């Protein structure tokens, strides 16, 4: 059974927002709702300043607070590590939205159910990569199987020091940042 993960190399992100657009188009997300976002942070004043471009999405945490807070089991974790939502089982109580430290979830206005990134599981099934990864111009987003010794993700995690967002929340994210 694979264990999917994503590595995001912030130095390679050029802020083109192709990932945001590709995600919306691929998953048919309603207007003004997003499963992924890109944060541009500029600190300091010219000429002494730094800029960070940080793509964010659901972290598919191993210790997922959204899954443990769901009253109906609609939010669940698959064996391959992907956190999913059974839309027909979701009651829209919004406990998962309150539980997620990363604010990665929202309410889908069409169905009324909680929604979030699925790592494009329908594409993975067909042997493809998530839409945001395929479209990434700077190759900032890298996706793969942690249990596959040949995967680039495995290699990057072994060769680099990575960070996870809000470490103190201790949710053990499956999205790692370089």
């Amino acid at each position, binding site marked *: 059974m694979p264990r999917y993960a994503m590595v995001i190399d912030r130095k390679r992100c050029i802020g083109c927002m192709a990932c945001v657009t590709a995600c919306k188009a691929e998953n048919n997300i309603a207007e*003004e709702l997003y499963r992924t976002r890109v944060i*541009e942070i500029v600190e300091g004043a010219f000429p002494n300043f730094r800029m960070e471009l940080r793509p964010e999405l659901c972290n598919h945490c191993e210790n997922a607070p959204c899954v443990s807070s769901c009253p*109906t089991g609609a939010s669940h974790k698959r064996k391959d590590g992907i956190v999913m939502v059974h839309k027909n089982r979701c009651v829209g*109580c919004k406990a998962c939205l309150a539980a997620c430290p990363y604010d990665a979830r929202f309410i889908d206005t069409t169905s009324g*159910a909680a929604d979030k990134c699925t790592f494009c599981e329908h594409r993975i099934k067909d042997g493809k990569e998530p839409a945001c990864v395929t479209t990434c111009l700077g190759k900032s987003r890298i996706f793969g199987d942690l249990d596959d010794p040949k995967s680039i993700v495995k290699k990057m995690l072994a060769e680099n020091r990575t960070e996870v967002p809000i470490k103190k929340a201790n949710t053990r994210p499956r999205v790692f940042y370089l």
Partner: protein
Amino acid sequence: MQEITITGINSITYPRLEVWDWLIAMYLFLGGMAAGLMVLSAVSQFRAKGAELPKSSYIGPIMAPFILAIAMVFVFFDLSKKLSAFWFYLSFNVTSPMSWVGWTVGVSIVMSALWALASLPDKTGAKLKLTILNKLSTIRKPLAGINLTLGVMVGIGTGVLLSSFVARPLWNSPVLPILFLVSGISTGAALLILIEKDTEESLFFKKTDIALIAAEIVLIALFFYGHFTSTASHVEAIMPFFKGGYYFPFWIATLILAIALPLAIILEAAEVAGRVRLRIHLSAWLVLAAGLILRLSIVYAGQLSSIKPLAGF
């Protein structure tokens, strides 16, 4: 200087979380009040010596299932997928406070309704001509015990529902469930004081309420102190209650609580001592208002708090 641009924000989570509003605050208030009725009416029944039960011993059990049902209606209206609400009762997730709350309140509605039937005065029971009433009245005391336990669970549950979220520092406090339980029992006592008028039982509820309000004040102080001595995001989380300007409504809430609760103690103590005879039980109304304001302000302010730094990790 820091400049932040986000492409792909969802208005439900940014710039602040906006998942729950006054509907959930009303659930917390009514749930707490029903919990108080269940606990205190059970105590009242255990205390009763004569064959005739005091008014609160049967009015409390009669009101509890209705108040709980209204509370659940508020939760229902908050759901964004109302037609799937039945899933609450087709599943149980032991790690989900929301699941516990759904089941506890559901069971409490049934058990308090049975208890209400068992506690009906003989005259009313005879009018109804239901044979089941005789059977139920024989198990009135065990039912009172069960309802006391369920009342405590419902009262604590209103706090656990919020305190389990690590992501929201204001709510993430072990004091909150106890604070909501004590405040809930206090609002239940206030309602019973309004119902009982001038009887010995009313005096007992007033004395109990004085102790409960005093405990509530200590717990509110501990709640804020716990945050104040915790992480930076916890300190930031309580600031709405002490800062004016943008946070003006929360500052007003602090002010009202700081005045209403001690004033309620003073008034109730004066009423117990027989020094004051007001035509309306102002102290009880103050406790009810403070209970509602406490829950409204905690629900809204909790959604302003976050452990998520905008820049960096």
